[in-house]
């Protein structure tokens, strides 16, 4: 498999305007709020001096384009502004929260793939009861809200069985086992619903490949079923599965916002929710920017991965 350099380059170039437009939208969020942003953020009890100081640091007296340029210049250099309520750089707050959200998203995706892939393959291989069971699982997984599943997991594993801590967090570097114990339930809550989608996509993709004429040929040639499944069917179904993984990352990043709140994980979602409640717009901007940029990057990576797995995509894209 050759690496689709041209496609990669094309996709990279196409990502730049998306990132730019996204940053404009995020920037405008603060300015669409009625009233003086500095005053809204600081609340009624803020001293006029403080309001003036914040106005000056955000350059609120300048024109919108100049404010944007000033802001984006900082963002590109990793400066997301200052949290005027806590007196801390926004970059620092987000930098501390980012590993938590990434770990949650990563572990949830592991759960989703670990459950969804085998379920999908099983359903494609054995029509009938297994397939119907998978379909039931898919409908159930879609119907049950992930955060409610989280609450139910807490009831079962923390309240009733006292096996896992209901909420909290320790960094992985300090205590790997303790860290994972805190992540088991959030990852299950967030991942199981996605597993349903992975299972459905995998089943459809593998079924399609198993029906292809070349599989009939392989069978006729006497190639053992496991080899057909692992080397041929999954290999050809991979691009579709990767595409869904990319889409689901967006769902995961959104879902993490709520799941973190339930399990007391100090991630980006918690930062965002608290900032919205406090009308702390510099932090809202920073958090939204980072989450959206992550999503755009993941989409870029999955697109390139799909092109690498299925060269037809890259050729079609470059033509």
């Amino acid at each position, binding site marked *: 498999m050759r690496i689709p350099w041209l496609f990669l380059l094309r996709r990279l170039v196409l990502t730049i305007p*998306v990132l730019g437009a*996204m940053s404009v939208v995020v920037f405008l969020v603060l300015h669409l709020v009625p009233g003086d942003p500095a005053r809204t953020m600081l609340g009624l009890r803020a001293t006029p001096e403080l309001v003036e100081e914040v106005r000056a640091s955000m350059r609120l007296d300048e024109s919108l384009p100049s404010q944007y340029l000033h802001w984006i210049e900082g963002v590109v250099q990793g400066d997301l502004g200052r949290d005027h309520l806590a007196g801390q750089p926004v970059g620092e707050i987000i930098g501390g929260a980012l590993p938590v959200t990434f770990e949650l998203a990563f572990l949830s995706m592991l759960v989703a793939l670990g459950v969804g892939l085998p379920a999908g393959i099983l359903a494609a291989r054995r029509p009938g009861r297994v397939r119907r069971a998978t379909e039931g699982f898919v409908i159930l997984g879609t119907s049950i*809200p992930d955060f*409610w599943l989280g609450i*139910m997991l807490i009831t079962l594993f923390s309240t009733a069985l006292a096996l896992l801590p209901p909420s909290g967090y320790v960094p992985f570097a300090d205590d790997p086992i303790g860290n994972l114990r805190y992540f088991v339930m959030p990852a299950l809550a967030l991942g199981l619903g996605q597993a349903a989608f992975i299972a459905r996509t995998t089943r459809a993709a593998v079924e399609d490949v198993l029906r292809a004429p070349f599989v009939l040929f392989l069978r006729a040639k006497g190639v053992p079923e496991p080899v057909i499944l692992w080397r041929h069917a999954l290999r050809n179904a991979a691009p579709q599965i990767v595409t869904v993984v990319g889409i689901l990352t967006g769902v995961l990043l959104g879902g993490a916002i709520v799941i973190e709140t339930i399990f007391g994980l100090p991630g980006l979602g918690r930062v965002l929710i608290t900032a919205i409640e406090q009308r702390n717009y510099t932090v809202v901007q920073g958090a939204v920017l980072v989450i959206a940029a992550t999503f755009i990057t993941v989409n870029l990576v999955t697109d390139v991965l799909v092109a690498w797995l299925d060269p037809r995509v890259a050729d079609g894209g470059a033509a």
Partner: protein
Amino acid sequence: MSAAGAATPAAAPRRLARRREGGTWSLRVGAGIVVALVLVAVCASVLAPHDRDAISATDVLGAPTPSHPLGFDEAGRDVLSRLLYAYRVSLGVALGSVGVALLVGVPIGLVAGFYGRWIDLLLMRPIDMMLAFPALLLSFVLIAVIGTGVRAAIIAIAAIFIPVFARVVRTAALTVSSLAYVDAARARGASNLSIMLRHVLPNAIGPALVQASILAGIAIQIEAAISFVGLGVQPPTPSLGVMLADGRNFLSQAPWLEIVPGCAIAVSVLGFILLADGLRGRLDPYGVSR
């Protein structure tokens, strides 16, 4: 149709028949659930056995009894009565957001798909931009700007769905616009507007309606999520999300406060998904909405 090709010829019609039967089954069950939900929501004030706000200090977190089959909440209010009103609010938010998204998204998709070229580009670029945000994040961004409450929740959820409808209708409109009967209408001297409304829209709306059913179910989940974290519907107005948030701290004493609204959400989502499945065979034979 390669499924039928792989099977024996005799099995093909049977399988097709079974699939159609399956569609009817999910249509019936799904439509049944959805109609029942809407009736419950509309008739909440008649069906509720007690006053939803009546507080009974002696029954705080009381277990279910024959006259209060779903027990009492943390303020001693009847859970069943609150649930019925919560349904009204949650379903209202869900259908409201889908309605708003249809009203905005369908015309955009219709015009973009019908005219194509630079109009398509001009309309669809901002729509694609919205898709660059993870769905829930987009809702929270809007809430940060417009605030909380029922109306804000409707707008925040509708924003997620607008690109979905615009894209689905655009794809269908693109296909329909190149068909012979559109050319015929044009040759007859029909105006663009009348072609769009009389010929393209009716043939392009099916997939969007299938999506609308799925999205109504998803909207119920999103309402619950944003109200649960305190940024959606605000108490004392009951919604399914508000009920879940209220009951959270009493999980060990009164688990029904969490189980009841959660199951209520799951059943409604199930209803809308089944309805969409059933509708797909009738409204979207080419599978655009998949």
